[in-house]
């Protein structure tokens, strides 16, 4: 893989990561927060794959990515379950509705 290609890939992965982070930090709807998390994860997995390609360790990179995907699925499932419950109890999917842990 060429150096410029690598650079573009890393840039794109970083952009995905930043977009995802923005989604988690700045969005009000819980659904958007979850999307942000997923997109962030994609950015992370892309980074690993690119790095594995660049260092010729695709085997290790694949293993890591598989692990990440599995964890991500579990987290997403749980997050969706939590969101369903939040909607049932508070009637809305806004981040502002789950502030009960306020000091």
């Amino acid at each position: 893989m060429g150096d410029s290609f690598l650079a573009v890939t890393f840039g794109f992965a970083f952009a995905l990561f930043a977009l995802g982070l923005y989604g988690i930090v700045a969005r009000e709807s819980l659904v958007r927060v979850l999307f942000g998390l997923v997109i962030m994860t994609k950015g992370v997995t892309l980074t690993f794959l690119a790095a594995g390609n660049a260092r010729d360790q695709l085997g290790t990179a694949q293993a890591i990515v598989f692990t990440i995907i599995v964890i991500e699925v579990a987290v997403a499932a749980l997050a969706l379950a939590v969101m369903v419950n939040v909607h049932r109890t508070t009637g809305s999917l806004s981040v502002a509705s789950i502030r009960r842990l306020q000091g």
Partner: protein
Amino acid sequence: MIAAPPFLIFLVGAPVVLLARGRARRVGLVVLAGLALALTLLLPEGVGWTVRFMEYDLVLLRADRLSLFTGYVFALITFLGVLYAAAFARPWLHLYALLYAGTSLGAVFAGDVVTLLIFWEGMAITSTLLVFEHGGAAVGAGYRYLLFHVLGGALLAGGLALQVVESGSLLLGPVSGSWPSFLTALGAGVNVGFIPLHTWLPDTYPRPHIAASVFLSVYTTKAGVYLLARTSPAVEAIALMGGAMAVYGVVFALAQNDMRKLLSYHIVSQVGYMVAGVGLGTVEGINGGMAHVFNHILYKALLFMAVGAVIHATGQHVMDRLGGLGRRMPVTAVTFWIAALSISGVPGFNGYVSKGMVIAASEDLLPLRVLLEIASFGTFLSFLKLGYFVFLREGDTPGRDPPWPMQSAQVGTAALCVAIGAYPALLFRILPAASAYDPWTPTHLLEAGLVLAGAAATFVTVGRVVLAPHEPRVRDADVAYEAAGRALVRFTQGLARGFAVVYDGFVAAVSQAGRSARRLQTGDLNWNVAGVALGILLVLLWLLWEGAA
């Protein structure tokens, strides 16, 4: 002959005698005191009666010329005092007085430092009890008295403990080293009445029972003088302090209206002579000081007895309400005058001998000598005042001579004053060191004569008006102590408030910090995630930094 420490007789005998009742008890008391006197007079020189305490071997009985001399006069006056006190049916007074005498004898005959301290504190406690026994106004004074004596005892204990460390020996003897000498002298100084540590004396002695005052006037101060002689600091400052005490006491005495308070200030003054003698450190000085101890005990106790008889007969403590008692109480008047002439140093009476010895010993230290002569002048003046306004001047206060036990005690003591005055050799034989003093030299007679004549002239001309008794307007150092006490309480309250401010401030600050920190916990998901992200970023940066370095 049994060589037993005299204190044992009192410590053991006193409670026993007090189990008896009425006349039997009073006779028992006098017999007990007589027994103790006999035992003391027959004590051989020597050291004995060791007892194991803490890790030391204490010496309960050390009889040498100095301790025997002091012991003799203590035991003698105890007998006379008990005789006087036997006129009153006050068992607790008798008990405390005997215990006081016993602990004093214990202190005098103590061979080692720890024994001395134990008896010294015992003296403080028993004499305080003697003061408290009377109740009423004596109670407050007793509290102040004990405060002073605990101070003195603690200083003494500290000084002697240091002395033990320095010298490695527990025996009571000359003290060396700056801290030990300073603390020991100060500790003894409280008992003796160094100015300004003397205020307890005129505060306390006039208040309890008249028989109690007789006992109080004897032991505490003279045991202090004995201790100074024993630890022989030989510091010029102490001798000069003695001179200062002599004059200070006389000045305040002249201003007093209460008879016993006047006598109390004279104790300060006369003890000043003793301190001057002992402080000089020379053989003549110590001899003179100790001789004065002996004589003073006799005539001062007699003064308190006579004045006590007047108080007992008339119910009055103050001179401005008295007069004309010379005719109605002849025995008391005569014994009074004998004592007054003794204390004033009139030739032919015992005070003249010992006062002369001290003054002679001070001839190398001119300031001291001047102070002592001034004090002698004031002393005679003061007693002319007391004697005139109570006994001689016209007055119609009713009164008569006291019961026979009191009279006998007075007469007995007076006889001793006269005997020693006429035959000083009686005293010289038992002095700690051989004395070359001759009281009858023309120089000595002339000196005394001049001072006495001057005082008499002053009194006869202006004294009767200027010195007419009235409530004194001078205040003694008590004022300073009271003010210091109040300041201390205010300081403590301020300190407590300061602490509270600091603590409460600290607690408030911590609470405030906690409350501020609380605001960080918003419960907002976005906020929390952002925080986590930032934290991870910082950690990564730091790791990179560390890795690069």
